[in-house]
């Protein structure tokens, strides 16, 4: 097939959906630029300097601070955003749109921070460190989704598995220690995913319904246990697990700027790094990964080559469940130190959005997760900066961002072709 190089592109309208998406994102960029210019720049006096403190609070490693003229920085970022907006609206970044979206997001937040701390200082290092922590459940959730969906099984019950993991982690953690809690949570996630697997693979139930059933069940049973058991005075000791303390990695945590931000964390962060690496290798460079992806793209083809489609799907689903359970334990064992019902707050679903945004790859999931984590962190920090937006509104930011991301992303990237379809043998 020839490409349309010789045809005047002005004559052709792209498919309607592509155009809409391109325009929407372009307008968003332009709106951001306008915001930076008209709101932030206008209210910044030319003499003010911003100090970005790059050493997270409590860090033994001290990184040099960044100081610059606030207005200058804000203007530069406004111009850059404007440029991106114009380019995106009229031409579009094509498959780099996701990437540029992230960049512009960074520009917006940097200018916000520069503005909020004009004439003063803000601990950006600390913020980045917290952002990394906030992104953990989203990244792990996305990884869980990737494992399962790459094999062709959609899992919308990540949220439910996370809640279960959080509860089991808290309870077992209170009794037998943090590591036991984490392991138990992981196993719990795996057990639940077996149910999802049986329903959707063996009984060919619609995967969304299967996931919904699990969500209903897990939300119910965790609330039940909290009300019936954990709220009773005599059992309250079952909900006091405490949390993992951060440990620094010997050499790496001493690197200026990066060290304290990336390498001085609790085991969840390190697991996240390792998993992203391991999963990338496993999915794209091993025999197991090739077969798994084949099953998700064209299970019949895999079947005719003697590959056990059902077996691989079960394994993928269970691995995803283990991950989701582990991810859930982060809330109780890595962050709060106990369990309550509203801990997960939809992160399981945001994880799915991160998976889509990251194009079903582990590295993409990491990037997308960081973005969402950043949005959350920003929301809370804006409050600290005295920005007069009510905290409830700020809480909406991650969810609105998810919608924007999905609107801008889906359709351009494709998920595994056979995802969501139960596999029927003997249907040739």
């Amino acid at each position, binding site marked *: 097939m020839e490409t349309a190089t010789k045809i005047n592109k002005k004559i052709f309208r792209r498919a309607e959906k592509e155009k809409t998406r391109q325009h929407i994102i372009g307008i968003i960029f332009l709106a951001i630029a306008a915001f930076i210019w008209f709101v932030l720049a206008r209210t910044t006096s030319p003499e003010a300097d911003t100090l970005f403190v790059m050493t997270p609070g409590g860090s033994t490693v001290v990184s040099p601070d960044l100081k610059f003229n606030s207005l200058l920085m804000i203007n530069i970022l406004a111009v850059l955003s404007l440029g991106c907006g114009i380019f995106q609206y009229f031409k579009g970044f094509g498959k780099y749109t996701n990437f540029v979206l992230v960049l512009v997001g960074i520009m917006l937040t940097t200018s916000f921070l520069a503005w909020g701390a004009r004439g003063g200082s803000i601990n950006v290092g600390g913020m980045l460190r917290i952002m990394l922590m906030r992104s953990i459940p989203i990244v792990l959730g996305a990884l869980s989704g990737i494992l399962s969906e790459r094999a062709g099984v959609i899992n919308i019950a990540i949220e439910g598995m996370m809640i279960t993991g959080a509860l089991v982690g808290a309870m077992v953690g209170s009794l037998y220690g943090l590591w036991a809690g984490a392991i138990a949570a992981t196993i719990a996630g795996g057990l639940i995913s077996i149910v999802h697997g049986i*329903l959707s693979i063996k009984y060919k139930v619609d995967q969304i319904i299967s996931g919904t059933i699990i969500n209903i069940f897990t939300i119910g049973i965790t609330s*039940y246990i909290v009300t019936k058991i954990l709220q009773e005075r005599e059992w309250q000791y079952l909900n006091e697990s405490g949390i993992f303390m951060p440990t620094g990695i010997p050499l790496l945590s001493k690197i200026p700027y990066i060290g304290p931000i990336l390498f001085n964390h609790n085991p969840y962060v390190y697991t996240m790094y390792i998993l992203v690496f391991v999963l990338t290798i496993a999915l794209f460079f091993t025999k197991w990964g090739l077969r798994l992806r084949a099953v998700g793209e064209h299970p019949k083809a895999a079947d005719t080559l003697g590959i056990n489609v059902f077996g691989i799907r079960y394994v993928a689903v269970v691995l995803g469940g283990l991950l989701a359970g582990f991810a859930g334990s982060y809330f109780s064992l890595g962050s709060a130190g106990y369990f309550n019902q509203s801990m997960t707050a939809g992160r399981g679903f945001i994880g799915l959005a991160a998976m889509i945004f990251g194009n079903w790859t582990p590295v993409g999931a990491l990037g997308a997760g960081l973005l969402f984590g950043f949005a959350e962190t920003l929301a809370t920090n804006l409050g600290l900066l005295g920005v007069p937006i009510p905290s409830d509104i700020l809480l*909406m930011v991650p969810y609105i961002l998810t*919608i924007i991301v999905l609107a801008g992303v889906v359709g351009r990237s494709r998920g595994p072709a056979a995802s969501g379809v139960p596999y029927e043998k003997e249907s040739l």
Partner: protein
Amino acid sequence: MEEKKDSGKKNFLKIFYEEISRSSVTIIILAIVTGLILGGILAAATTKEIYEAFDESFKTGITESLKFIWKTYSSLFLGSFGNPKKMIASLSSGESAEMRKAFKPFLESLVVTTPYLITGVAIALGFQAGVLNMGGEGQLYMGSIIAGWAGWTFKGLSPIIHVPLALMVGVLAGALWGLIPGWLKAKTGSHEVITTIMMNYIAFSLSQYLITGPFVDPNEAFKTPFIEESAHLFRFFEDPLRLHIGFIIAILVAVIAWYVLYKTTWGFELRNVGLNPHASKYAGINSALVTILAMTVSGALAGLAGAVEMLGVNFRAVQSLTTGYGWDAIAIALLAKNHPLVVIITSMLFGFMRQGSRVMQINTGIPIDIISILQAFILFFIAAPSIIRTIYRLKEPKQTEPSSLISGSGEKI
């Protein structure tokens, strides 16, 4: 002669048994029963007193368990229906206060059913159009708050104007909440499962903000003012009976939905878009438009449910935890196989269980969350009927039943 008659009778029984064992209604009933059994076991297993009874002896343990389960489910029944003896007695005595007290559980269950019914129809409509509306909760919230706003803001209106006005406003709020994910799905292909769930969280945050901020009652923190009397939905009886006209509205919604869905060209188009968007396009149906409309109407109805709750029961908005209506509605729709008239039945099942569970919680200390657990069990068995068939050794149905309850899972159009 004797033998022939005998074998005739045996054959009849055999055929009867066969028909029952093949029927899908049997599956549903058995699913519910099995769910209840499992739920009962769970309840017993998490109650201290049962363990103490087992400590004494196995026999005491079993007896105590059975007694406990009986107590649990009978309180559930009494809480949801009421005591039949008392109901009959009060009718014969004719005393109004006694009658009200006796029929309170039943009528209260209908009150609880009302929002379930409307939201159930909302979700079922969406499913039939191939749209997975997981955002019932958020749409309901928005409908509730905005209807409330219309309720306390406009003063001095006559009820004939005020009630429809407030309901309308709530419906519009819910419609907006459904329109956004619907439009996004049609125009950009974003998966409505995620977008509707995100809209839920946005709705929660937004309503929190409104309740504590612009809509707050000047005299009481974290609560909105009460709505005007003129916005109250008409109640059929005096206190403590709360049955209001919203229930009739709910039934009407279900009937109208059924009629539109199965008797009109609009419904024909909607169902076919849900079953096969490609063939529908070929047949001249505007699949994208139908999807957007379905999502909007679904949201509008959920908004109506919220508005009805506000104007009929709550009368003000209070900062509170989620109610779980959204997930329940999904279960209700699925159990009804997305048929609006059957939703009347399944929503009553859930409404009665919810109402009964409040009494059950008081009597036995079992948290009301057990209802969600029961729901999940029942859905589990309905979704995979083969499991029930295996447990109870039933026969396969004559024509293969589809084991998935809805077709399509958010495909882009």
